[in-house]
């Protein structure tokens, strides 16, 4: 395929992803469903306006606290809520995301907390969402080729839960592009790239810890990724990681300098209080991650694309592994493992946004899988997986009562196609048909997801999403 056509498809995917994210981004998710969105932005705005980070915190340990009714976006007319506890100097998280959304509000001349509307603060998130989408595409393109990149890109652009989640002002949405940049540059370095790639991985790993401390998973990823490169001696690994640390750690240390500059005692108190937080995710975290993909603490959608990608994740881990470095899809798997480690370690409440950083990696894995199926060896698991995604997506737009009028089409077509999907084992030439059918089923699934997003209203969101 010509380069110009590839660029055109890449841009088309970005535009599609942007338009889906932009549609109704002010009303879905409903403002006030996560007060973090406001709090992050208040911290940034107050830092820029009065040089003091002021925000909401559920953590005890703050000396300066004010109880206020701040009815921003009239959320208290929609969401049952009580006055908010405002604390300063707010040290729950590092200030990079607050400076992004609060900084945008500042430049939009927002004067006070009650004026920090989602209409303003979700705009930078739309941009971050599209950057993440571009990075998903770029990583898969450089590691697994164009077809796989198209699959990954389209999955990440159109999967409803990902589209909805990427609109929210949550630290995890700022971690995602930084994690992807660490992945891209680590991959380039491990595949013969210059040392500058390792330094750049260090810069973005450092920056990720200025978003949230769970950004430390990028340190862990680089550590394991370099360590598992058995082609290089252990001594080389140690020097490489030292170089990485020399770049990344001064950036991370900036948070501690920043924290101490607002009072060492306050900073230590918040750290201690964070460490004592309720371990709400419990021991069933992994099970919860697979069975229900949460958006907030209570809103979740079982997302067939993400569920299918988890199956691919497992299938990769079941394979016999000779070298982590030579197989391109092991890097995202390692990043997921690194992030899961920090997720399990930090714990806290089972908020949906803690799982957001896993989703781009899952889309990468699913895209690489379908890319290989279409361009290389076909296996009938691909067809079963595509039916799983199709059926799951269909139930979002047609309820079981409405589906009855189409049930005969489904009951006759699907069994025939399922049996047909294994016939290539006897007649290898049929593979072309199998691949075509799989592509058609995936295309229909994506079309359904786009339709679902275009027709979703605030009322539907409020009443139908559990």
């Amino acid at each position, binding site marked *: 395929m010509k380069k110009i056509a590839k660029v055109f498809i890449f841009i088309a995917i970005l535009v599609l992803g942007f338009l889906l994210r932009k549609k109704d981004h002010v009303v879905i998710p409903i403002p006030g469903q996560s007060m973090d969105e406001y709090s992050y932005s208040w911290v940034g705005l107050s830092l820029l306006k009065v040089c003091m980070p002021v925000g909401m915190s559920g953590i005890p340990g703050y000396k300066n606290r004010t109880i206020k009714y701040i009815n921003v976006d*009239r959320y208290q007319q929609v969401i049952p809520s009580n006055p908010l506890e405002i604390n300063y100097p707010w040290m729950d998280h590092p200030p990079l995301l607050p400076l992004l959304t609060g900084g945008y509000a500042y430049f939009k001349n927002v004067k006070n907390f009650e004026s920090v509307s989602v209409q303003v603060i979700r705009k930078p998130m739309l941009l971050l969402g599209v950057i993440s989408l571009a990075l998903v595409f770029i990583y898969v393109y450089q590691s697994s080729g164009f077809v796989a990149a198209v699959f990954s890109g389209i999955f990440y652009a159109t999967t409803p839960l990902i589209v909805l989640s990427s609109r929210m002002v949550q630290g995890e949405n700022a971690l995602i592009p930084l994690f992807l940049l660490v992945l891209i540059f680590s991959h380039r370095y491990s595949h013969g790239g210059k040392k500058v790639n390792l330094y750049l991985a260090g810069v973005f790993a450092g920056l990720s810890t200025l978003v949230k401390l769970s950004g430390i998973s990028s340190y862990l990823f680089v550590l394991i990724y370099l360590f598992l490169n058995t082609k290089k001696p252990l001594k080389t690994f140690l020097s490489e990681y030292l170089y990485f640390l020399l770049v990344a750690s001064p950036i991370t240390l900036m948070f501690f300098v920043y924290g101490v500059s607002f009072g060492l005692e306050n900073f230590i108190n918040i750290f201690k209080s964070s460490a004592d937080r309720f371990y709400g995710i419990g021991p069933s975290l992994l099970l919860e991650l697979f069975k229900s993909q949460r958006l907030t603490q209570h809103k979740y959608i079982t997302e067939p694309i993400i569920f299918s990608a988890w199956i691919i994740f497992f299938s990769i881990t079941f394979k016999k592994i000779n070298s982590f470095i030579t197989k391109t899809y092991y890097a995202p798997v390692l990043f997921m493992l690194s992030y899961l480690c920090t997720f399990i370690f930090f714990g806290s409440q089972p908020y949906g946004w803690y799982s957001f950083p896993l989703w781009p990696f899952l889309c990468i894995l699913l895209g690489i899988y379908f890319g290989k199926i279409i361009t290389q060896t076909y296996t009938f698991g691909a067809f079963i997986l595509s039916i799983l995604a199709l059926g799951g997506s269909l139930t979002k737009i047609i309820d079981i009562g409405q589906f009855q009028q189409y049930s005969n089409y489904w009951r006759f077509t699907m069994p025939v196609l399922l049996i047909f999907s294994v016939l290539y084992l006897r007649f290898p030439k049929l593979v072309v048909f199998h691949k075509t059918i799989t592509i058609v089923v995936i295309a229909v699934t994506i079309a359904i997801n786009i339709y679902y997003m275009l027709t979703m209203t605030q009322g539907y969101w409020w009443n139908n999403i559990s």
Partner: protein
Amino acid sequence: MSFLLFIKFQREKNFSKENYNSLVAGRSETMQLTQDPCLYKILGDPEVLGEEYIKINFWCSDGRVSKSTLAMRGLSDLTFLGVVSKYSKIVGIDQKVFEKYGWTCNLNSSQADPQKIVTPHSNIDCYENKSQVPRK
């Protein structure tokens, strides 16, 4: 070290109680004020959480009612006028409407004195039409 000093210097220059209050308690410039006190209410219920509260109800002449419960810890001025003003600010009521249309307010079933301190579990009832005011 210079970064640390820079932050400290900037904070001492810019942070004051007045700046903090105008940031945290300032009124939204984009919230559209309503002339209809029965249009909105606060959905939270501090009573359920076992907090000290004040109930505030608006009775419109067309039969509509807006009932809210305010948590006392969210209020700084506990005079009757302070509470009604705060409530009006929270839900975005144009306060001129009360004078313009002659609203009458009771505090615990007696005509309200604007400077009277509102005690926990009090009821504030405001009526658009005097004929709605319950007779003792």
